[in-house]
Protein backbone atom coordinates (compact mmCIF):
# COMPACT_ATOMS: atom_id res chain seq x y z
CA UNK A 1 0.00 0.00 0.00
CA UNK A 2 2.71 2.49 0.95
CA UNK A 3 5.04 3.35 -1.86
CA UNK A 4 8.61 3.31 -0.59
CA UNK A 5 10.94 6.13 -1.54
CA UNK A 6 14.45 5.64 -2.83
CA UNK A 7 17.03 6.02 -0.10
CA UNK A 8 18.63 9.14 -1.54
CA UNK A 9 15.28 10.83 -1.55
CA UNK A 10 14.72 10.02 2.10
CA UNK A 11 17.91 11.69 3.13
CA UNK A 12 16.99 14.83 1.31
CA UNK A 13 13.52 14.73 2.78
CA UNK A 14 14.92 14.61 6.24
CA UNK A 15 17.04 17.59 5.44
CA UNK A 16 13.88 19.33 4.33
CA UNK A 17 12.48 17.76 7.39
CA UNK A 18 9.45 18.18 9.56
CA UNK A 19 9.81 15.71 12.35
CA UNK A 20 12.40 14.58 14.81
CA UNK A 21 11.99 12.37 17.92
CA UNK A 22 14.09 11.54 20.95
CA UNK A 23 12.95 9.35 23.90
CA UNK A 24 13.64 7.79 27.29
CA UNK A 25 10.24 8.83 28.46
CA UNK A 26 10.80 11.88 26.34
CA UNK A 27 9.74 12.18 22.75
CA UNK A 28 10.82 15.17 20.76
CA UNK A 29 9.53 16.37 17.47
CA UNK A 30 10.43 18.96 14.94
CA UNK A 31 7.89 20.50 12.68
CA UNK A 32 8.19 22.79 9.71
CA UNK A 33 5.57 25.34 8.68
CA UNK A 34 5.07 23.95 5.19
CA UNK A 35 3.30 20.79 6.43
CA UNK A 36 -0.27 20.93 5.12
CA UNK A 37 -1.52 19.12 8.18
CA UNK A 38 -0.05 19.34 11.63
CA UNK A 39 1.29 15.82 11.83
CA UNK A 40 3.78 16.52 14.59
CA UNK A 41 1.09 17.98 16.77
CA UNK A 42 -1.11 14.89 16.39
CA UNK A 43 1.73 12.49 17.20
CA UNK A 44 2.88 14.63 20.15
CA UNK A 45 -0.67 14.78 21.53
CA UNK A 46 -1.19 11.00 21.11
CA UNK A 47 2.06 10.05 22.81
CA UNK A 48 1.76 12.50 25.70
CA UNK A 49 -1.89 11.55 26.37
CA UNK A 50 -0.70 7.99 27.02
CA UNK A 51 1.12 9.28 30.09
CA UNK A 52 4.22 7.38 29.08
CA UNK A 53 6.12 10.09 27.24
CA UNK A 54 7.13 13.65 27.68
CA UNK A 55 6.97 15.25 24.28
CA UNK A 56 8.70 18.31 22.88
CA UNK A 57 8.02 19.70 19.45
CA UNK A 58 10.82 21.60 17.74
CA UNK A 59 10.85 23.60 14.57
CA UNK A 60 14.50 22.98 13.65
CA UNK A 61 16.40 19.75 13.28
CA UNK A 62 19.40 19.26 15.50
CA UNK A 63 18.26 21.04 18.63
CA UNK A 64 19.57 19.02 21.55
CA UNK A 65 17.01 18.09 24.16
CA UNK A 66 18.64 15.30 26.09
CA UNK A 67 15.72 13.01 25.31
CA UNK A 68 16.37 9.33 24.72
CA UNK A 69 14.62 8.93 21.39
CA UNK A 70 14.23 11.03 18.29
CA UNK A 71 11.39 10.82 15.83
CA UNK A 72 12.51 12.33 12.58
CA UNK A 73 10.25 12.87 9.64
CA UNK A 74 10.04 14.40 6.23
CA UNK A 75 7.24 15.35 3.88
CA UNK A 76 7.09 16.48 0.29
CA UNK A 77 4.27 16.97 -2.17
CA UNK A 78 4.01 14.22 -4.76
CA UNK A 79 1.76 13.99 -7.79
CA UNK A 80 -2.07 14.04 -7.86
CA UNK A 81 -2.35 16.01 -4.62
CA UNK A 82 -0.66 13.26 -2.63
CA UNK A 83 2.24 13.47 -0.21
CA UNK A 84 5.38 11.41 0.31
CA UNK A 85 6.30 10.96 3.96
CA UNK A 86 9.13 9.28 5.77
CA UNK A 87 9.61 8.63 9.45
CA UNK A 88 12.64 7.43 11.38
CA UNK A 89 12.66 6.46 15.04
CA UNK A 90 16.15 6.67 16.50
CA UNK A 91 17.76 5.95 19.82
CA UNK A 92 19.31 9.37 20.23
CA UNK A 93 21.98 8.32 22.68
CA UNK A 94 23.17 5.22 20.83
CA UNK A 95 22.53 6.74 17.41
CA UNK A 96 20.78 3.57 16.25
CA UNK A 97 17.77 3.31 13.95
CA UNK A 98 14.87 1.55 15.70
CA UNK A 99 12.34 1.60 12.86
CA UNK A 100 11.43 3.55 9.77
CA UNK A 101 8.34 3.99 7.66
CA UNK A 102 7.50 5.43 4.26
CA UNK A 103 4.08 6.40 2.99
CA UNK A 104 2.35 8.09 0.09
CA UNK A 105 -1.10 9.35 1.03
CA UNK A 106 -3.67 11.92 -0.08
CA UNK A 107 -4.27 15.01 2.04
CA UNK A 108 -7.40 13.53 3.63
CA UNK A 109 -5.42 10.63 5.11
CA UNK A 110 -2.58 12.60 6.67
CA UNK A 111 -4.15 12.67 10.13
CA UNK A 112 -4.94 8.94 10.16
CA UNK A 113 -1.37 8.32 9.00
CA UNK A 114 -0.16 10.42 11.94
CA UNK A 115 -2.18 8.23 14.35
CA UNK A 116 -0.70 5.12 12.71
CA UNK A 117 2.76 6.55 13.28
CA UNK A 118 1.88 7.14 16.94
CA UNK A 119 0.85 3.48 17.13
CA UNK A 120 4.15 2.41 15.57
CA UNK A 121 6.28 4.52 17.94
CA UNK A 122 4.23 3.53 20.99
CA UNK A 123 4.53 -0.17 20.17
CA UNK A 124 8.23 0.03 19.41
CA UNK A 125 9.05 1.82 22.66
CA UNK A 126 6.62 0.17 25.11
CA UNK A 127 5.94 -3.24 23.62
CA UNK A 128 2.22 -2.45 23.93
CA UNK A 129 -0.05 -2.07 20.93
CA UNK A 130 -1.09 1.55 20.44
CA UNK A 131 -4.76 2.65 20.43
CA UNK A 132 -4.32 5.90 18.52
CA UNK A 133 -6.15 4.53 15.44
CA UNK A 134 -9.16 3.25 17.40
CA UNK A 135 -12.45 5.12 17.97
CA UNK A 136 -14.48 6.47 20.84
CA UNK A 137 -18.27 6.59 20.45
CA UNK A 138 -20.30 8.80 22.78
CA UNK A 139 -23.70 10.40 23.26
CA UNK A 140 -23.95 14.21 23.26
CA UNK A 141 -27.24 15.42 24.76
CA UNK A 142 -27.98 18.97 23.65
CA UNK A 143 -30.63 20.75 25.70
CA UNK A 144 -32.62 23.44 23.91
CA UNK A 145 -34.85 26.08 25.46
CA UNK A 146 -38.50 25.17 24.98
CA UNK A 147 -37.74 22.22 22.70
CA UNK A 148 -36.91 18.55 23.25
CA UNK A 149 -33.28 17.65 23.94
CA UNK A 150 -31.42 16.33 20.89
CA UNK A 151 -29.43 13.15 21.54
CA UNK A 152 -26.60 12.49 19.08
CA UNK A 153 -24.22 9.55 18.83
CA UNK A 154 -20.78 10.48 17.49
CA UNK A 155 -17.88 8.25 16.54
CA UNK A 156 -14.59 10.13 17.05
CA UNK A 157 -10.90 9.28 16.96
CA UNK A 158 -9.51 8.05 20.27
CA UNK A 159 -8.09 11.56 20.87
CA UNK A 160 -11.55 13.09 20.41
CA UNK A 161 -10.75 14.50 16.98
CA UNK A 162 -12.87 14.11 13.83
CA UNK A 163 -16.24 13.31 15.46
CA UNK A 164 -18.71 11.89 12.93
CA UNK A 165 -22.47 11.85 13.46
CA UNK A 166 -23.91 8.32 13.47
CA UNK A 167 -27.35 8.78 15.02
CA UNK A 168 -29.54 11.75 15.94
CA UNK A 169 -32.75 11.51 17.97
CA UNK A 170 -34.99 14.41 18.94
CA UNK A 171 -36.38 13.96 22.44
CA UNK A 172 -35.47 10.26 22.52
CA UNK A 173 -32.53 9.36 24.81
CA UNK A 174 -29.75 6.97 23.81
CA UNK A 175 -27.61 5.19 26.41
CA UNK A 176 -25.34 2.23 27.17
CA UNK A 177 -23.33 2.27 23.93
CA UNK A 178 -21.20 -0.85 23.41
CA UNK A 179 -19.25 -2.06 20.36
CA UNK A 180 -19.57 -5.52 18.87
CA UNK A 181 -16.23 -7.38 19.05
CA UNK A 182 -15.77 -7.07 15.25
CA UNK A 183 -16.12 -3.28 15.45
CA UNK A 184 -19.00 -3.23 12.94
CA UNK A 185 -21.97 -2.51 15.21
CA UNK A 186 -22.78 -0.48 18.29
CA UNK A 187 -25.54 -1.77 20.58
CA UNK A 188 -27.46 0.74 22.69
CA UNK A 189 -30.60 1.34 24.74
CA UNK A 190 -33.27 3.70 23.44
CA UNK A 191 -36.99 4.44 23.23
CA UNK A 192 -38.55 4.40 19.77
CA UNK A 193 -42.25 5.19 20.28
CA UNK A 194 -41.59 5.81 23.97
CA UNK A 195 -40.92 2.14 24.76
CA UNK A 196 -37.55 0.95 26.04
CA UNK A 197 -35.63 -1.49 23.85
CA UNK A 198 -32.11 -2.64 22.96
CA UNK A 199 -30.97 -1.77 19.42
CA UNK A 200 -27.86 -2.06 17.36
CA UNK A 201 -26.66 0.22 14.60
CA UNK A 202 -24.24 -0.72 11.84
CA UNK A 203 -21.49 1.88 11.94
CA UNK A 204 -20.72 1.75 8.22
CA UNK A 205 -24.30 1.71 6.89
CA UNK A 206 -26.28 3.44 9.67
CA UNK A 207 -28.93 0.70 9.53
CA UNK A 208 -30.61 0.08 12.91
CA UNK A 209 -31.89 -3.25 14.23
CA UNK A 210 -34.12 -3.86 17.27
CA UNK A 211 -32.61 -6.67 19.34
CA UNK A 212 -34.72 -6.90 22.52
CA UNK A 213 -38.09 -5.32 23.30
CA UNK A 214 -39.91 -6.90 26.24
CA UNK A 215 -42.28 -5.36 28.82
CA UNK A 216 -40.49 -3.01 31.21
CA UNK A 217 -36.71 -2.65 31.25
CA UNK A 218 -34.55 -3.72 28.27
CA UNK A 219 -31.06 -2.58 29.18
CA UNK A 220 -27.31 -3.07 29.62
CA UNK A 221 -26.36 -4.87 26.36
CA UNK A 222 -22.98 -6.66 26.36
CA UNK A 223 -21.72 -8.69 23.40
CA UNK A 224 -20.01 -12.00 24.18
CA UNK A 225 -16.31 -12.04 23.16
CA UNK A 226 -17.13 -14.05 19.99
CA UNK A 227 -20.09 -11.78 19.16
CA UNK A 228 -22.62 -14.62 18.94
CA UNK A 229 -24.47 -13.83 22.19
CA UNK A 230 -25.53 -10.77 24.13
CA UNK A 231 -25.94 -10.48 27.89
CA UNK A 232 -28.60 -7.98 28.98
CA UNK A 233 -30.74 -6.85 31.93
CA UNK A 234 -34.52 -7.29 31.47
CA UNK A 235 -37.46 -6.86 33.85
CA UNK A 236 -40.08 -8.64 31.69
CA UNK A 237 -42.76 -6.53 33.37
CA UNK A 238 -41.90 -7.87 36.84
CA UNK A 239 -40.53 -6.17 39.96
CA UNK A 240 -37.06 -7.66 39.53
CA UNK A 241 -34.50 -6.85 36.86
CA UNK A 242 -32.57 -9.95 35.86
CA UNK A 243 -29.59 -10.96 33.73
CA UNK A 244 -30.31 -12.89 30.55
CA UNK A 245 -28.18 -14.18 27.69
CA UNK A 246 -29.65 -13.94 24.19
CA UNK A 247 -28.42 -16.09 21.32
CA UNK A 248 -28.24 -13.41 18.63
CA UNK A 249 -28.94 -15.85 15.78
CA UNK A 250 -32.14 -17.32 17.27
CA UNK A 251 -33.07 -14.57 19.83
CA UNK A 252 -33.53 -17.38 22.37
CA UNK A 253 -33.15 -16.14 25.97
CA UNK A 254 -31.56 -17.87 28.96
CA UNK A 255 -32.30 -16.38 32.39
CA UNK A 256 -29.35 -16.31 34.79
CA UNK A 257 -30.56 -14.44 37.90
CA UNK A 258 -33.89 -14.47 39.72
CA UNK A 259 -34.11 -11.81 42.43
CA UNK A 260 -33.42 -8.11 42.96
CA UNK A 261 -31.89 -5.49 40.69
CA UNK A 262 -29.31 -7.30 38.56
CA UNK A 263 -27.70 -5.33 35.77
CA UNK A 264 -24.53 -4.26 33.91
CA UNK A 265 -23.38 -7.74 32.87
CA UNK A 266 -19.88 -8.00 31.37
CA UNK A 267 -18.18 -11.04 29.92
CA UNK A 268 -14.79 -12.18 31.11
CA UNK A 269 -12.44 -12.12 28.08
CA UNK A 270 -12.24 -15.95 28.22
CA UNK A 271 -16.10 -16.14 27.98
CA UNK A 272 -16.19 -18.47 30.99
CA UNK A 273 -17.87 -16.09 33.41
CA UNK A 274 -20.10 -13.04 33.66
CA UNK A 275 -19.61 -10.21 36.13
CA UNK A 276 -22.71 -8.19 37.00
CA UNK A 277 -24.08 -5.71 39.54
CA UNK A 278 -26.71 -6.76 42.06
CA UNK A 279 -28.37 -5.23 45.11
CA UNK A 280 -29.26 -8.69 46.52
CA UNK A 281 -27.24 -7.98 49.67
CA UNK A 282 -28.51 -4.41 50.07
CA UNK A 283 -26.20 -2.07 48.19
CA UNK A 284 -25.02 -2.50 44.59
CA UNK A 285 -21.99 -4.79 44.50
CA UNK A 286 -20.26 -6.92 41.87
CA UNK A 287 -20.95 -10.64 41.55
CA UNK A 288 -19.28 -13.26 39.39
CA UNK A 289 -21.19 -16.10 37.75
CA UNK A 290 -19.26 -19.05 36.36
CA UNK A 291 -21.04 -19.97 33.12
CA UNK A 292 -19.56 -23.48 33.08
CA UNK A 293 -20.73 -24.71 36.50
CA UNK A 294 -23.25 -22.04 37.53
CA UNK A 295 -21.28 -21.08 40.64
CA UNK A 296 -21.99 -17.56 41.89
CA UNK A 297 -19.93 -15.50 44.30
CA UNK A 298 -19.74 -11.92 45.48
CA UNK A 299 -16.66 -10.13 44.18
CA UNK A 300 -16.59 -6.71 45.88
CA UNK A 301 -16.83 -5.84 49.57
CA UNK A 302 -14.86 -2.59 49.43
CA UNK A 303 -17.06 0.53 49.47
CA UNK A 304 -20.81 1.10 49.83
CA UNK A 305 -21.56 1.01 46.10
CA UNK A 306 -19.78 -0.55 43.12
CA UNK A 307 -21.31 -0.53 39.67
CA UNK A 308 -20.99 -0.32 35.87
CA UNK A 309 -17.97 -2.67 35.55
CA UNK A 310 -15.96 -3.19 32.37
CA UNK A 311 -13.21 -5.73 31.91
CA UNK A 312 -9.81 -4.70 30.65
CA UNK A 313 -9.35 -6.92 27.57
CA UNK A 314 -6.33 -8.57 29.24
CA UNK A 315 -8.70 -9.79 31.99
CA UNK A 316 -6.50 -8.38 34.77
CA UNK A 317 -8.82 -5.61 35.98
CA UNK A 318 -12.43 -4.59 36.23
CA UNK A 319 -12.80 -0.83 35.83
CA UNK A 320 -15.93 0.42 37.59
CA UNK A 321 -17.81 3.20 39.37
CA UNK A 322 -16.90 3.06 43.05
CA UNK A 323 -18.28 4.86 46.10
CA UNK A 324 -16.34 4.30 49.29
CA UNK A 325 -18.64 5.99 51.82
CA UNK A 326 -22.32 6.92 51.67
CA UNK A 327 -21.71 10.66 51.31
CA UNK A 328 -18.39 10.31 49.49
CA UNK A 329 -17.62 10.90 45.83
CA UNK A 330 -18.41 8.41 43.09
CA UNK A 331 -15.11 7.73 41.34
CA UNK A 332 -13.68 5.45 38.68
CA UNK A 333 -11.61 2.63 40.17
CA UNK A 334 -9.73 -0.45 38.95
CA UNK A 335 -10.40 -3.72 40.76
CA UNK A 336 -7.48 -6.15 40.47
CA UNK A 337 -8.96 -9.58 39.68
CA UNK A 338 -6.01 -11.41 41.19
CA UNK A 339 -5.42 -9.47 44.41
CA UNK A 340 -8.88 -7.95 44.98
CA UNK A 341 -7.22 -4.55 45.45
CA UNK A 342 -9.38 -1.52 44.57
CA UNK A 343 -7.28 1.27 43.06
CA UNK A 344 -8.95 4.68 42.76
CA UNK A 345 -8.24 6.33 39.39
CA UNK A 346 -10.26 9.59 39.56
CA UNK A 347 -11.52 12.17 42.05
CA UNK A 348 -15.27 12.47 41.38
CA UNK A 349 -17.55 13.96 42.66
CA UNK A 350 -19.64 11.96 40.15
CA UNK A 351 -17.60 10.10 37.55
CA UNK A 352 -19.54 7.73 35.33
CA UNK A 353 -19.61 5.12 32.58
CA UNK A 354 -15.99 3.92 32.29
CA UNK A 355 -14.83 2.29 29.05
CA UNK A 356 -11.42 0.69 28.50
CA UNK A 357 -9.11 0.94 25.48
CA UNK A 358 -8.52 -2.31 23.58
CA UNK A 359 -4.89 -2.44 24.79
CA UNK A 360 -6.12 -2.40 28.44
CA UNK A 361 -4.05 0.72 29.11
CA UNK A 362 -6.46 3.69 29.04
CA UNK A 363 -9.88 4.47 30.55
CA UNK A 364 -12.37 6.99 29.14
CA UNK A 365 -15.30 8.10 31.34
CA UNK A 366 -17.59 11.06 31.94
CA UNK A 367 -17.26 13.65 34.69
CA UNK A 368 -20.77 14.60 35.80
CA UNK A 369 -20.00 16.79 38.81
CA UNK A 370 -21.62 19.94 37.43
CA UNK A 371 -24.65 18.22 35.94
CA UNK A 372 -23.18 18.33 32.47
CA UNK A 373 -21.17 15.35 31.28
CA UNK A 374 -17.56 15.94 30.20
CA UNK A 375 -15.52 13.28 28.40
CA UNK A 376 -12.29 12.54 30.25
CA UNK A 377 -9.36 10.17 29.98
CA UNK A 378 -7.19 8.47 32.57
CA UNK A 379 -4.97 5.39 32.51
CA UNK A 380 -5.19 2.08 34.31
CA UNK A 381 -2.89 3.36 37.07
CA UNK A 382 -4.70 6.71 37.42
CA UNK A 383 -1.52 8.72 36.85
CA UNK A 384 -2.74 10.92 34.01
CA UNK A 385 -5.94 12.94 33.67
CA UNK A 386 -6.98 14.58 30.41
CA UNK A 387 -10.26 16.15 29.27
CA UNK A 388 -11.00 15.16 25.68
CA UNK A 389 -12.51 17.55 23.11
CA UNK A 390 -16.11 16.65 22.14
CA UNK A 391 -19.08 18.03 20.29
CA UNK A 392 -21.39 20.33 22.29
CA UNK A 393 -23.79 18.93 24.88
CA UNK A 394 -23.75 16.75 27.96
CA UNK A 395 -21.50 13.79 27.14
CA UNK A 396 -22.75 10.34 28.16
CA UNK A 397 -22.08 6.61 27.66
CA UNK A 398 -18.62 6.66 26.02
CA UNK A 399 -17.66 3.37 24.37
CA UNK A 400 -14.16 2.52 23.18
CA UNK A 401 -13.97 0.53 19.95
CA UNK A 402 -11.98 -2.68 19.56
CA UNK A 403 -8.87 -2.68 17.33
CA UNK A 404 -9.96 -2.34 13.70
CA UNK A 405 -6.83 -4.03 12.23
Amino acid at each position, binding site marked *: MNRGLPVKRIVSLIVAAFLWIQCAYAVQMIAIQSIPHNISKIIANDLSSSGRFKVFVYTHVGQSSGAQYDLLGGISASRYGRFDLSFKLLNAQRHTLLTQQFANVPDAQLSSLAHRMSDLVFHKLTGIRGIFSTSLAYVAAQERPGSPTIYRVYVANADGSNPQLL*LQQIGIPVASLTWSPDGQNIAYVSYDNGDMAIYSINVATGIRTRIADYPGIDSAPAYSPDGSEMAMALSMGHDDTNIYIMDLATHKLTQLTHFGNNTSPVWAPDSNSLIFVSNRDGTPQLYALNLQNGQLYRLTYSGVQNFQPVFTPDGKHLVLMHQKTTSGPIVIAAYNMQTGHMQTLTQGPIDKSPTVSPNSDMVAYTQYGRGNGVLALTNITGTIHVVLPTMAGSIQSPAWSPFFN
Partner: protein
Amino acid sequence: MKIWKMSLLVVSMVSLSGCALMGYRSSEPKTSQQAQIQSHGLGTHKTYSSYGAATPSVSNVIYFGFNRFSLDYKAEQTAHKTVRYLLAHSAQSALLAGYTDPRGSQSYNFHLGQRRADAVKQYLIAQGVPAHQLCTVSYGELKPAATPAQFGGDWQKAYALDRRVEVMLGQQVCNGKG
Protein backbone atom coordinates in the same frame (compact mmCIF):
# COMPACT_ATOMS: atom_id res chain seq x y z
CA MET B 1 -27.40 28.99 29.19
CA LYS B 2 -28.09 29.41 32.87
CA ILE B 3 -30.69 32.06 32.21
CA TRP B 4 -32.77 30.03 29.86
CA LYS B 5 -32.62 27.03 32.13
CA MET B 6 -33.93 29.22 34.95
CA SER B 7 -36.69 30.54 32.77
CA LEU B 8 -37.57 27.01 31.70
CA LEU B 9 -37.84 26.04 35.33
CA VAL B 10 -40.04 29.02 36.10
CA VAL B 11 -42.27 28.18 33.15
CA SER B 12 -42.56 24.55 34.22
CA MET B 13 -43.34 25.57 37.81
CA VAL B 14 -46.04 27.95 36.62
CA SER B 15 -47.57 25.27 34.44
CA LEU B 16 -47.46 22.78 37.32
CA SER B 17 -49.21 25.13 39.72
CA GLY B 18 -51.60 25.97 36.88
CA CYS B 19 -52.61 22.32 36.78
CA ALA B 20 -53.15 22.25 40.49
CA LEU B 21 -55.35 25.33 40.50
CA MET B 22 -57.38 24.69 37.41
CA GLY B 23 -57.79 20.97 37.57
CA TYR B 24 -57.33 18.87 34.48
CA ARG B 25 -59.08 21.03 31.92
CA SER B 26 -55.85 22.91 31.44
CA SER B 27 -53.85 19.76 31.07
CA GLU B 28 -55.57 18.02 28.21
CA PRO B 29 -52.87 16.20 26.27
CA LYS B 30 -51.28 18.29 23.59
CA THR B 31 -49.09 16.74 20.99
CA SER B 32 -45.71 18.34 20.66
CA GLN B 33 -43.55 17.99 17.59
CA GLN B 34 -42.87 14.57 16.14
CA ALA B 35 -39.83 12.84 17.56
CA GLN B 36 -37.48 12.11 14.74
CA ILE B 37 -34.69 9.57 14.40
CA GLN B 38 -31.96 9.90 11.80
CA SER B 39 -28.97 7.64 11.29
CA HIS B 40 -26.00 8.18 8.98
CA GLY B 41 -23.63 5.38 8.02
CA LEU B 42 -20.03 6.50 8.34
CA GLY B 43 -19.07 4.43 5.31
CA THR B 44 -21.87 5.80 3.11
CA HIS B 45 -23.64 9.10 2.63
CA LYS B 46 -27.03 7.53 3.21
CA THR B 47 -29.41 8.88 5.83
CA TYR B 48 -32.26 6.86 7.33
CA SER B 49 -35.12 8.76 8.95
CA SER B 50 -38.05 7.56 11.00
CA TYR B 51 -40.81 9.42 12.77
CA GLY B 52 -41.68 8.24 16.26
CA ALA B 53 -45.03 8.67 17.92
CA ALA B 54 -46.05 12.14 19.02
CA THR B 55 -44.63 13.01 22.42
CA PRO B 56 -47.49 13.38 24.91
CA SER B 57 -47.43 16.27 27.35
CA VAL B 58 -46.90 15.91 31.07
CA SER B 59 -50.07 16.33 33.13
CA ASN B 60 -48.84 15.56 36.64
CA VAL B 61 -45.55 15.00 38.46
CA ILE B 62 -45.09 12.89 41.60
CA TYR B 63 -41.84 13.26 43.57
CA PHE B 64 -39.87 10.69 45.58
CA GLY B 65 -37.25 10.64 48.33
CA PHE B 66 -33.63 9.61 47.76
CA ASN B 67 -33.39 5.96 46.75
CA ARG B 68 -37.12 5.54 47.55
CA PHE B 69 -39.91 4.23 45.38
CA SER B 70 -42.82 4.35 47.79
CA LEU B 71 -45.39 7.17 47.71
CA ASP B 72 -45.51 9.33 50.82
CA TYR B 73 -48.66 11.22 51.86
CA LYS B 74 -47.85 14.23 49.68
CA ALA B 75 -47.11 12.01 46.68
CA GLU B 76 -50.41 10.19 47.15
CA GLN B 77 -52.27 13.50 47.29
CA THR B 78 -50.62 14.55 44.03
CA ALA B 79 -51.31 11.17 42.41
CA HIS B 80 -54.95 11.38 43.44
CA LYS B 81 -55.56 14.13 40.90
CA THR B 82 -54.67 11.62 38.21
CA VAL B 83 -57.05 9.10 39.81
CA ARG B 84 -59.95 11.55 39.55
CA TYR B 85 -59.12 12.43 35.97
CA LEU B 86 -58.75 8.84 34.74
CA LEU B 87 -61.94 7.70 36.50
CA ALA B 88 -63.82 10.50 34.75
CA HIS B 89 -62.19 9.81 31.36
CA SER B 90 -62.25 6.07 30.83
CA ALA B 91 -61.10 6.39 27.21
CA GLN B 92 -57.87 8.06 28.31
CA SER B 93 -54.65 6.18 28.94
CA ALA B 94 -51.77 7.32 31.15
CA LEU B 95 -48.11 6.61 30.55
CA LEU B 96 -46.23 6.69 33.86
CA ALA B 97 -42.58 7.57 33.25
CA GLY B 98 -40.13 6.98 36.12
CA TYR B 99 -36.92 9.00 36.61
CA THR B 100 -34.02 9.13 39.07
CA ASP B 101 -31.28 11.53 40.09
CA PRO B 102 -27.78 10.90 38.67
CA ARG B 103 -26.26 9.31 41.77
CA GLY B 104 -25.75 5.73 40.70
CA SER B 105 -25.05 4.21 37.31
CA GLN B 106 -27.24 4.59 34.23
CA SER B 107 -28.10 0.89 34.13
CA TYR B 108 -28.69 0.56 37.88
CA ASN B 109 -31.04 3.55 37.86
CA PHE B 110 -33.34 2.08 35.20
CA HIS B 111 -34.60 -0.31 37.89
CA LEU B 112 -35.32 2.48 40.38
CA GLY B 113 -37.14 4.54 37.73
CA GLN B 114 -39.24 1.50 36.81
CA ARG B 115 -40.10 0.78 40.45
CA ARG B 116 -41.26 4.39 40.90
CA ALA B 117 -43.50 4.14 37.83
CA ASP B 118 -44.78 0.75 39.05
CA ALA B 119 -45.52 2.20 42.52
CA VAL B 120 -47.65 4.98 41.02
CA LYS B 121 -49.39 2.42 38.81
CA GLN B 122 -50.20 0.24 41.84
CA TYR B 123 -51.52 3.25 43.74
CA LEU B 124 -53.79 4.25 40.83
CA ILE B 125 -55.08 0.67 40.50
CA ALA B 126 -55.72 0.51 44.25
CA GLN B 127 -57.78 3.69 43.90
CA GLY B 128 -59.95 2.04 41.25
CA VAL B 129 -58.28 3.01 37.97
CA PRO B 130 -58.52 0.06 35.53
CA ALA B 131 -55.08 -1.42 34.79
CA HIS B 132 -55.74 -1.29 31.03
CA GLN B 133 -55.65 2.51 31.17
CA LEU B 134 -52.07 2.45 32.51
CA CYS B 135 -48.60 1.71 31.20
CA THR B 136 -45.08 2.45 32.43
CA VAL B 137 -41.60 3.28 31.17
CA SER B 138 -38.30 3.97 32.96
CA TYR B 139 -35.87 6.64 31.81
CA GLY B 140 -33.68 6.20 34.91
CA GLU B 141 -31.29 9.14 35.08
CA LEU B 142 -31.39 9.87 31.34
CA LYS B 143 -33.78 12.84 31.48
CA PRO B 144 -32.87 15.03 34.46
CA ALA B 145 -35.44 17.73 35.30
CA ALA B 146 -32.88 20.15 36.67
CA THR B 147 -29.16 20.75 37.07
CA PRO B 148 -27.30 21.87 40.20
CA ALA B 149 -26.17 24.98 38.28
CA GLN B 150 -29.80 26.19 38.25
CA PHE B 151 -29.71 26.30 42.04
CA GLY B 152 -26.29 27.86 42.40
CA GLY B 153 -24.68 24.46 42.74
CA ASP B 154 -27.18 23.16 45.31
CA TRP B 155 -27.38 19.62 43.97
CA GLN B 156 -29.86 18.51 46.63
CA LYS B 157 -32.51 20.84 45.20
CA ALA B 158 -31.82 19.75 41.62
CA TYR B 159 -31.79 16.04 42.45
CA ALA B 160 -35.08 16.34 44.38
CA LEU B 161 -36.72 17.49 41.11
CA ASP B 162 -35.10 14.61 39.20
CA ARG B 163 -36.63 11.88 41.42
CA ARG B 164 -40.09 11.75 39.91
CA VAL B 165 -42.82 10.02 37.97
CA GLU B 166 -44.41 12.02 35.16
CA VAL B 167 -47.98 11.21 34.20
CA MET B 168 -48.49 11.60 30.45
CA LEU B 169 -52.00 11.47 29.08
CA GLY B 170 -53.18 10.60 25.61
CA GLN B 171 -55.41 8.13 23.78
CA GLN B 172 -52.52 6.42 21.99
CA VAL B 173 -50.00 6.82 24.78
CA CYS B 174 -50.00 3.16 25.83
CA ASN B 175 -50.17 1.60 22.36
CA GLY B 176 -47.62 -1.15 21.97
CA LYS B 177 -46.21 -0.78 25.47
CA GLY B 178 -45.84 -3.31 28.24
